[in-house]
């Protein structure tokens, strides 16, 4: 049976670490991913400000970020991680690869959500004399809000799963905990307990995201 007195605090500690890694990288991903998604949309050949070169370069960067498996990305960006945080071990270090993985992921989802906004609405705003900046701020982003919330939810959940993967190379958090306490000590019950915590976390976030998206959608 699990020795809760011994494992409990460690499990709690791991959960807090996961929460920390995921939330910080999520904030950074939203801060960078949304502008990047907007940029992808605007510079597309059929966008408001077509820019072939910019769109090509940003698109290639985004595709590259998305095509590298996360476990490889972790190793690949280790020098960057060390440069930014001074270490490659622990939850703060893990924020760097998590953010690098989440930004292009979210950017594509943001681009897709913005594309869902009916072009007639953009046209109406242009007819009112709106500048491109105004169109983004008053039409595209508000009208895409339900889609953006759904995109953020998907990204958040992907981040939780990535953060657990980072545990494999000493990234801290629930993944790290499951490997050290569950796998390496042959204590399956601990592994299952970790899975339950992750499951509850994902479930709560997904239904919160869905509820918010529904409330924002006035259809």
């Amino acid at each position, binding site marked *: 049976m699990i020795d809760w007195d011994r494992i409990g605090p460690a499990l709690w500690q791991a959960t807090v670490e996961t929460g920390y890694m995921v939330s910080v990288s999520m904030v950074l991903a939203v801060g960078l991913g949304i502008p990047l998604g907007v940029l992808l949309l605007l510079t597309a050949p059929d966008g408001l400000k077509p820019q072939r070169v910019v769109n090509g370069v940003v698109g290639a960067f985004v595709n590259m970020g998305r095509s590298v498996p996360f476990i490889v990305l972790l190793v690949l960006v280790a020098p960057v991680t060390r440069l930014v945080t001074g270490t490659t071990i622990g939850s703060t270090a893990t924020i760097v690869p998590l953010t690098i993985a989440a930004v292009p992921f979210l950017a594509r989802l943001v681009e897709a959500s913005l594309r869902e906004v*009916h072009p*007639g*609405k953009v*046209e*109406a*705003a*242009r*007819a*009112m*004399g*709106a*500048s491109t900046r*105004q169109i983004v701020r*008053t*039409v595209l982003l*508000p*009208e895409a*809000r339900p889609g953006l919330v759904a995109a953020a939810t998907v990204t958040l959940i992907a981040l939780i799963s990535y953060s657990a993967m980072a545990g494999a190379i000493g990234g801290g958090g629930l993944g790290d905990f499951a490997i050290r306490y569950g796998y390496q000590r042959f204590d399956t019950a601990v592994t299952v307990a970790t899975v339950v915590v992750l499951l509850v976390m994902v479930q709560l976030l997904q239904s919160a995201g869905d509820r918010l998206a529904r409330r*924002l*959608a*006035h*259809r």
Partner: protein
Amino acid sequence: MITLTNIGKTFPGTRRRPAVTALDDVSLTVERGQVMGVVGPSGSGKSTLARIVNLLERPTRGTVTVDGVELTALSAGQLNSARRGIGMIFQQFNLLDSRTALANVELPLELAGVGRAERRARATELLQRVGLGDKLGSHPAQLSGGQRQRVAIARALAPRPRVLLCDEATSALDPVSTASVLTLLRDLTDELDLTTVLITHEMDVVKRACDHVTLLEAGRVVDAGALSDVVRRPLSPLATRLLPHPQAPVGEPVVEVTVGGAGHDAVLTELIRRYDVQVAVVAGSVETLGDQRFGRLQLRLDGAPEQVRPALEFLAAADPGGRDPGSEDTHDLDDRALRALEEAVA
């Protein structure tokens, strides 16, 4: 108020489809206060034409002048402020679903930097004017099609434009909503001294709401003019669509006359008072165009030749359109009718 000069618009081709010339040397003038209907079959370029007036679409050739400003010569920033003087409504309304009716109407004012209180007051007043004073807080999804178009009209008028563009504004509406939206547009045009361009594929919309009309076909202007003039040119392509030629029974000697409109509404009364002839209406069609009633009647005149002949001449003079120099056929019809009548009398 609106002058389009030698407008050409060609959409460049791609690998899969060839280039398309949507408009070919179109010139069009809409004077202040006019309601200009632009009709034509789908693909005739009429929507492109509407979008060229506010430069949503840049013409390949030609110039666009609205309210004395040549839009085609403006910078992007100047164009944005010029566009605030041109309201536009669309077939699909294009309201923002995330905003209430009130916030939708406020949008153009927000874009123009108008303060919150002033915005709110103006938007409320406009929504009340279009009959939606009780729907300020409703989202578009909670409104019917006709109500949404009313919100869109209020939104278009919020920045006090001098020009209103309507691109198939009633095509997505049921007949009842169409009628009420057209009446509203007509009233607002007079009330606010608007100059309106109304793009439609329905002749009925032109009959009800416009005073001028332009027919586009394959990107060219085929016919144009004031409704009351066009209808009197019986052989022009628009005249037939506005007021169909009635079908008289074959073999009856008849003369066709277009009556109605300012100065032409008492032709039959005059005819009977002045000449000793019997007048029978053999066939006819009557239409309300704008706020005037027009009829195209085929008449049979019976009586002594010395009465019938001057009566026919009177009709010809009263309906100069029937003697349009460009419409030889009408002339023939009258001559034929004249001969037939003379024979019948003799």
